[in-house]
């Protein structure tokens, strides 16, 4: 299976280890992974800010870059959701483009969704010792139905205990540019999320979207809390920062 990896702009800049973990997981699942070189951003900031032109320009660029990939996978529910759910909306007024858009959006997946439902992965390379709680990031959950997939994969890891938190489906307050435009509201929402994470008693909170990770980690640290904040790909691949287990490749 040839898979185009959409690294996502945040992972590229802020935490490349997530990109390598995704690469590792896809290769372990027997996929041939290509990483289109010129990729930047899916256009979500423009789309959510009402700048349709900016979103379209970046969407067209991404479509051209990934069009020859039989599958497109992103370690992010929000970027995969952008392509799957919102690209068809974005191009609803250009029928010529719409067929190409649909063809691509239908084969675009969030990482854990792809691993479980397309690659049929039943075991993962990583090991992890400790307890985690899982935050269901909004776009993955509500746009793509990513809920059972990460839990199913995490459940295959022997040393890992899942302690569900109260309100695991409640938004952490990130919301892209919302986090900076309404900093005080966003912070208070993050606080409510942090309270639930801490109450779960888990050593780490695991999730599938880097934007939410930065929000949650940034607030936890500001509160002086050391609970680890890990991307599900890092955990599954055994690449979690601070994890003593060696990478399997």
């Amino acid at each position, binding site marked *: 299976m040839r898979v185009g990896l959409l*690294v996502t*702009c945040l*992972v*590229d*800049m*802020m*935490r*490349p*280890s997530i*990109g*390598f973990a995704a690469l590792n997981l896809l290769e372990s699942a027997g996929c041939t992974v290509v*990483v289109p070189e010129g*990729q*930047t*951003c899916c*256009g979500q*900031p*423009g*789309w*959510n*800010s*009402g*700048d*349709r032109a*900016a979103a379209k*320009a*970046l969407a067209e*660029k991404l479509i051209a870059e990934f069009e020859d990939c039989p599958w497109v996978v992103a370690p992010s529910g929000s970027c995969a959701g952008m392509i799957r759910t919102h690209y068809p*909306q974005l191009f609803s007024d250009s029928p010529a483009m719409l067929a190409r858009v649909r063809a691509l959006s239908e084969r675009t997946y969030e990482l854990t969704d792809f691993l479980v439902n397309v690659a049929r992965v039943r075991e993962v390379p990583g090991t992890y010792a400790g307890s985690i709680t899982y935050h269901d990031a*909004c776009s993955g959950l*509500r746009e793509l139905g990513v809920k059972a997939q990460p839990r199913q994969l995490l459940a295959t890891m022997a040393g890992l205990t899942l302690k569900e938190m109260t309100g695991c489906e*409640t*938004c952490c*307050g990130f*919301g*892209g*540019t*919302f*986090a*900076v*435009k*309404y*900093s*005080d*509201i*966003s*912070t*208070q*929402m*993050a606080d*409510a999320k942090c309270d639930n994470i801490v109450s779960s008693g888990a050593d780490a909170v695991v999730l599938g979207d880097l934007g939410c*990770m*930065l*929000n949650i*980690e*940034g*607030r936890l*640290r*500001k509160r002086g809390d050391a609970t680890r*904040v890990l991307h599900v790909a890092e955990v599954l691949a055994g690449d979690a920062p601070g994890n003593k287990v060696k990478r399997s490749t």
Partner: protein
Amino acid sequence: MKVQSIHFRARAADAMANPVLQQNLGRFASGGLGKLRADAVADFGPQAFEELREAARAIRERSLTHMDVWIAQFEREASRRGATVLFAETAEDARDLVLEICAKHGIKKAVKSKSMLSEEVGLNEALSAAGVQPVETDLGEYIIQLASEAPSHIIAPAVHKSRDEVSDLFEQHHGKPRTSDIPQLTREAREALRAHFLSGDLGISGGNFLVAETGSGIIVTNEGNGRMVTTLPRVHVCITGIEKVIPTLEDLSTLLRILPRSATGQAISNYASFFTGARGEGDAEGPEHMVFILVDGGRTNLIGTELQDMLRCIRCGACMNHCPVYRTVGGHSYGWVYPGPMGAVLTPAYVGLENALDLPQAATLCGACSVVCPVKIPLPDLMRTLREQQVERGLRPRAERLGLKLWSWFAQRPRLYAIATRLAVWAMRFHADRSGMIYWMPFASGWTGSGKAGEGRFLPAPAGRTFRDLYARRKRGG
């Protein structure tokens, strides 16, 4: 009602700084209506409930597509059964019609059951100014009327108040010893209201639905005050939005299954009151005159636009019950009648985009609202549409526009983008402490706040190199 939505930021900041309100909102968030809805959906069967949502959506869609036909039929059927049907294009028209009715029938006191539309058109103020005493008889509305406040939730208007605050209000207004026993408080309100029901000469109700087939208005209530208001006084005015019309009683039966479940988790509300015409000859009770006032107030402007879906709304409040922003800032922050996600769309649509700039923006687009909406209104999509309209009309701050332009310009040029992100990573690393956290840096204060303790967040700094650079090195065999 005066529109204060332009002050969203300041109102939200006040709300977040108010510990009593925060406690009340916290109680609402944890044990609130969302949980009750979830239990009701589980009882009904999640799959069956999805089918019910789809049926409800289709009914509302059909109602809107041929609204003119259903309205004409409603007017014909209601008139045939002895009611008068009036139309108000604006809030002012609606107030004038009610005041004309008051003058014609020599009304001194109007008893009201809960009506958000009456809030929308500022009816109470107009009645008071004309010498008619308006008395709210829904318990929540009664409480906020005593407090001279606006509702903060469409079905639980006093949800922002604690039991202690209600005790204080009742002590002040009822002239009885203070109590914080809820059944006792309710009894006090009931005793105070009973006299008003009996002395009111006009009853004003809202209308959850208007059935075209029979010319009936329907209200869904839990307290029984609606029955009093619509049967005891000489005159009954049902004032509601023109979009509330539905074709048939069969349609109504579907909507009555989904409305209470979505709103309060009840399989059925305590009361579903139907009013069809005035008291007929030989009828034991009912008003002598029954008037429907159907208010447009900007609604028909949405027909045929990208915002038409919003008119499907059946006012259950599920969107705000599930909204994490609403639960943080409360209903009053939104500055008009309709708070939460529905308000984020309705307010700019009805009072003007420029008068509610923050409302469509102050949302994370998490989608919690749209997945519980009983008529499947794509609320985040509608907020995005309003954001686009703001951009088109030049209503966004210049810095934001410039930032987006810059981002998109670089992102379309991979080589420059690679250099720019390298620089950004370097700058962030420069500002990070040993643990990799950025406390503050230029252009990031939106994230970190002013850097004060307790405020904002740290920014976890990048690891060091971009994925792009690391991957290129790896491919070179580095």
